[in-house]
C-alpha cells in the first residue's frame, strides 16, 4: 500500500527537470555514457548530483569520484540573402565534477559535491555579422552541494542539500551594427565579473519497490546570479556627448540558473541495467538579460525562454569483472523560442548519442570514460529584438545555423 502511494506521487508530478540553453549536462562520466540518466541509478557517488536520496544506497562506507570533460563545440552560420558567413572558434570548455559520500549508518549518509552544471564558451570572429549580439562569451558556474541522505522506509529514501553557486561571466559584443569611432573601429562593450555567489537547494526521493525497479525524483531550485560588482569596459566609442564615454564603469545584471525537475526509472536484470529519465528545465524564468551600466546606459535583451524537456535513455552492461560498458541516447529540447535565437547560445533541439565504459583497475579504483556526440539539425532562425542605438525599430539578425558538439570525458571512481 505504501509503495503504491509513493508511485502515485510520482505519477502526479507531471512537470520535471532540465535541458538546452547554457545548461551543460556533463556531471558524471558513468551517467553521461548512459545518456546522462541517473535519477534512479545508484552507480557511484555521482548520485549525489542526480538524486541525493540515492546516496544512502551506496554499498561502500566511503565512495568518491571525480572527472572532467573537454567540450569541443562549434557553430557555423550563414545568411544566403546577404552572403555573410562565420564559424565560431570556441575554446574547449572544461566542465568538472567531484563527489564524496560517507555512510554514517545503514540508514544515513552524508556527502559533498562540486560540479559545473552551467556554462557557455562561444567565440565568434571579432566584428562578424552578428557581433552586435555577441563576439565572445564565457559563462561558468560552480555548484557546491553538501548533502544528507536518509532511508525513510524500507523502500523509500530521501535526500537534500543546500547549493552554493559561484558564477563568473565574460561577455564581449559590439554596441551596434554599425556604430564606430572616428577611425571606423567598431564600438564595443565588454563585461566581466567573477566570484558572484548565489544560493539554492536540491531535494530528492528514491523508491525501490523491489530488486529490479528503482524510481527517482529530484528537484534543483532556481539560482539567480546577481552581478553587481563587475566591470564593464566601453571602447572605440567616438568622442561625442551623443554616445557613452570610453573607459570602465560598473554594471548590474541578473542571470537565472533555472530550476530543474527530474523523474526517472531504472530496471536491473542480471548484468544489464536500463534507465529512463525525464527532465524539465524551468527556463521560462529567463525572460530578459538586462544590463544597467554605471555610466547611465542600459542594454535590454529579451530572451523569452520557454520551459524545456529532455528525454534520456541509457543502458549499462557488466561485460566482465573488469569492464562495464554503457551507451545512451537523449533528445534535448531547446528552450530558445523562434525569433529569440541569439548567437550567444545558438542551441536548437539536439540528439545526444553517448558511449562509455568503466574499467576496474582493482577493487577500489575504476577508470570511467565517456563520449557524447551532440547532433543538431541545421536551422533557419533569427534574433529579432535588437535595436541599434538611436534607432526606433528593431532589426533582425539571422540565417542558417548548424551546431555540433563532441564531448569526451574521463574520470575516476574510488570505493572503500
Amino acid at each position: 500500500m505504501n509503495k503504491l502511494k509513493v508511485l502515485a506521487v510520482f505519477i502526479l508530478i507531471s512537470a520535471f527537470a532540465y535541458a538546452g540553453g547554457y545548461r551543460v549536462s556533463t556531471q558524471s562520466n558513468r551517467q553521461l555514457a548512459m545518456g546522462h540518466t541517473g535519477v534512479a541509478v545508484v552507480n557511484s557517488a555521482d548520485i549525489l548530483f542526480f538524486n541525493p536520496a540515492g546516496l544512502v544506497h551506496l554499498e561502500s562506507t566511503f565512495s568518491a569520484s571525480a572527472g572532467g570533460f573537454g567540450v569541443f563545440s562549434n557553430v557555423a552560420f550563414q545568411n544566403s540573402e546577404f552572403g555573410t558567413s562565420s564559424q565560431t572558434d570556441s575554446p574547449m570548455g572544461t566542465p568538472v565534477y567531484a563527489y564524496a559520500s560517507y555512510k554514517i549508518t545503514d540508514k544515513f549518509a552524508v556527502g559533498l559535491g562540486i560540479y559545473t552544471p552551467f556554462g557557455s564558451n562561444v567565440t565568434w570572429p571579432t566584428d562578424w555579422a552578428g557581433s552586435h549580439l555577441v563576439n565572445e562569451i564565457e559563462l561558468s558556474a560552480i555548484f557546491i552541494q553538501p548533502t544528507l541522505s536518509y532511508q525513510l522506509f524500507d523502500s523509500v529514501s530521501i535526500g537534500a542539500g543546500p547549493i552554493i553557486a559561484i558564477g563568473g561571466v565574460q561577455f564581449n559584443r559590439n554596441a551596434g551594427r554599425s556604430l564606430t569611432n572616428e577611425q571606423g573601429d567598431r564600438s564595443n562593450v565588454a563585461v566581466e565579473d567573477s566570484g558572484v555567489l548565489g544560493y539554492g537547494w536540491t531535494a530528492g526521493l528514491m523508491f525501490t519497490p523491489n530488486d529490479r525497479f528503482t524510481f527517482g525524483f529530484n528537484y534543483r531550485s532556481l539560482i539567480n546570479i546577481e552581478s553587481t560588482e563587475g566591470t564593464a569596459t566601453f571602447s572605440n566609442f567616438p568622442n561625442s556627448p551623443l554616445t557613452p564615454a570610453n573607459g570602465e564603469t560598473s554594471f548590474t545584471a541578473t542571470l537565472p540558473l533555472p530550476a530543474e525537475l527530474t523523474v526517472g526509472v531504472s530496471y536491473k536484470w542480471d548484468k544489464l541495467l536500463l534507465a529512463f529519465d525525464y527532465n524539465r528545465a524551468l527556463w521560462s524564468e529567463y525572460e530578459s538579460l538586462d544590463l544597467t551600466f554605471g555610466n547611465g546606459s542600459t542594454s535590454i535583451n529579451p530572451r523569452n525562454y520557454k520551459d524545456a524537456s529532455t528525454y534520456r535513455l541509457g543502458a549499462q552492461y557488466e561485460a566482465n569483472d573488469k569492464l562495464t560498458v554503457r551507451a545512451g541516447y537523449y533528445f534535448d529540447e531547446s528552450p530558445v523560442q523562434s525569433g529569440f535565437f541569439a548567437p550567444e547560445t545558438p542551441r536548437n533541439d539536439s540528439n545526444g548519442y553517448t558511449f562509455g565504459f568503466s574499467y576496474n583497475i582493482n577493487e577500489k579504483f575504476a577508470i570511467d570514460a565517456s563520449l557524447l556526440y551532440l547532433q543538431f539539425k541545421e536551422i533557419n532562425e533569427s534574433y529579432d529584438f535588437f535595436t541599434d542605438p538611436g534607432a526606433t525599430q528593431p532589426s533582425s539578425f539571422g540565417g542558417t545555423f548548424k551546431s555540433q558538439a563532441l564531448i569526451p570525458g574521463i574520470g575516476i571512481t574510488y570505493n572503500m
Partner: protein
Amino acid sequence: MKKFNLKYIALFVAAIAVVSCDPELENPIDEAGVYSSGTADFSKYVAVGNSLTSGYADGALYLDAQEKSFPAIMAGQMAFAGGGEFNQPLVNDNAGGLLAGGVQILPNRFVLAVGADGNPGPAVYTGQMPTTDITNNVGENLNNFGVPGAKSFHLGAPGYGNIANLPAANPYFIRFASDPNATVIADAAAANGTFFTLWIGNNDILSFATSGGVGVDQTGNLNPATYGSNDITDPNVFAGAVSGYVTALTANGAKGALVNIPDVTSIPFFTTVPSNAIPLDAATAGLVMSNPQIAGYNAGLQQAAGAGFITSTEAAQRTINFTAGQNFMLMEDEDLTDLSALGLPNLRQTNSSDLITFTSAAVIGTQADPSNPLSIIGVAVPLGDENVLTANEQAAITAAQTAYNTTLENLAAANDLAFVDARTALAQVASTGVGFNGGTLTSTYASGGGFSLDGVHPTPRGYAFTANVIIDAINEQYGSTLPRVDIGAYRSIQTSNDVN
C-alpha cells in the same frame, strides 16, 4: 579476457575519430556555384566615375568611407560569383584632407559635433592631421577610377591629373594618374576589366545647382574648354564624351552598367533649409513693414504694372510682405524684369518653388553689417543669387539632366549594358524613404541615414543602398544572382566632438 576489453576500448576510440568536430552546413555559400554570374564575367571589375564612385562623403575622401564605396561593396558581393580582388586608390587616413607637398589644399571631413548650445551640427574634424599627399602616386593595379569633382568631359581630358596644371587639374586624379598627361578613361580602359560601372554626369549639373545657379547654362556651347566650373554642360558634349567612354570600356567585350543622374531635389543640400526660414512675431513684422523703403518699392511695383512695364502677376510676385509667423525671405532675382530705370531693384521674396542651398543656413537671419541690427539677411538685406536655386534655374538643370539620362538609357540599350535608374531610387529615398532591416533610409539631413554631412554625398549606408540598386539592375540584365548587402550593417553619419 584482456583482448575482449581492448576491443571495446578500440571501438570507443574509433567513435571519437569518426565524428568530425566541424559543423558543416548543407549548402555552404562560400562554395562555388551557389551564386551565379549569369552571362556576365565579374572576374575583374573596374569602376569609373566621379566622387560617388570614389566613396567620397562628408565633404572629403577619407579611408573609412572609401572602404565602403559602392564599388567596393559590390566587389565584395561579386566575389561570390567569380569576382577577383578590388583595389582602390586608398587615402592614408580618416582625416580626409589632402596635402600637396606638405601643404593642406583640401579640408578635412565633416563630423556631427554637439555645439556649446547643445545642438548637434556639422563641423570639420580636427582629431587628426591629414597625411595624404597628392605628390605620392598610388596608381598601381587599380580597379576604382572614381575621381571626385570630375564632370563628364573631364574623364577624357589629358592633363587632368597633371600637378603642373593645378588648380585646373584634379588633385584626386593627380594621386593615381598613370602619367601626368594620361586621361581617366584611358587608364580605366587599360585596366582591361571584364565588367565595369560608369556613373558620370552628376557634376555637370550639380556644381551649377550647389552654386545656387551662379554659373551659366552652356547648352548650345559645344566647347567645354570655355566652361566655368559652375556651368551646366551641353547635353551633346555629355553624349559625345560618355559614348566615347562606353566604347573604350567595352572594346574588349566587357559587360557593365550605366547609372543615371538623380534629381538635385533628392539631396538634403536643397531640402534642408526651407524657403520660409524667417520666423517673426507680429511686432517685429510690423517694424519691418514700417520701413518706408518697402512701402516705396511696393508702390513702385503697382505703378510699373499700371504703366505696363510688368504684369500684375509679376507685381504681386515681387510685392514685399512680412507677417507674423514663418516668412519667405527677401532675395535678389536676376530673372525679374529690370526696373532699375524706375529706381526699383530686382527684389522679391522667396516662394515655395525656390530651393535654398544648405550653405545659406549660415547666413540667413544674421546681420550683414555687424554694427547694424536692422541689416538682417533675408529680411532687410536680400539673399544673393548663390543662396537660391530659382524655378528657372531648376528648369535649366532638369532639361540638361533629362537629356543626359536619355543618352545614358539609349547607350545602355544599344550596348546591352545594365541601366541603373538611380534617379528613381533616390527619389524614393527622398519622398517616402526606403525601409530596411532595422529602419527607414531617408534623405533627411543627418538623421535620415542616407546622406553624409555635406548634404550631397551618401553615407556608407547610402552607398550600400546604391550598391543594392546597381546589383539589382545587373542581376536583371545578366541573369546573375549577386546577393544584396544588409544596409543596416553600414554606418550612417559619424558623431565626434574632435573639432577643436
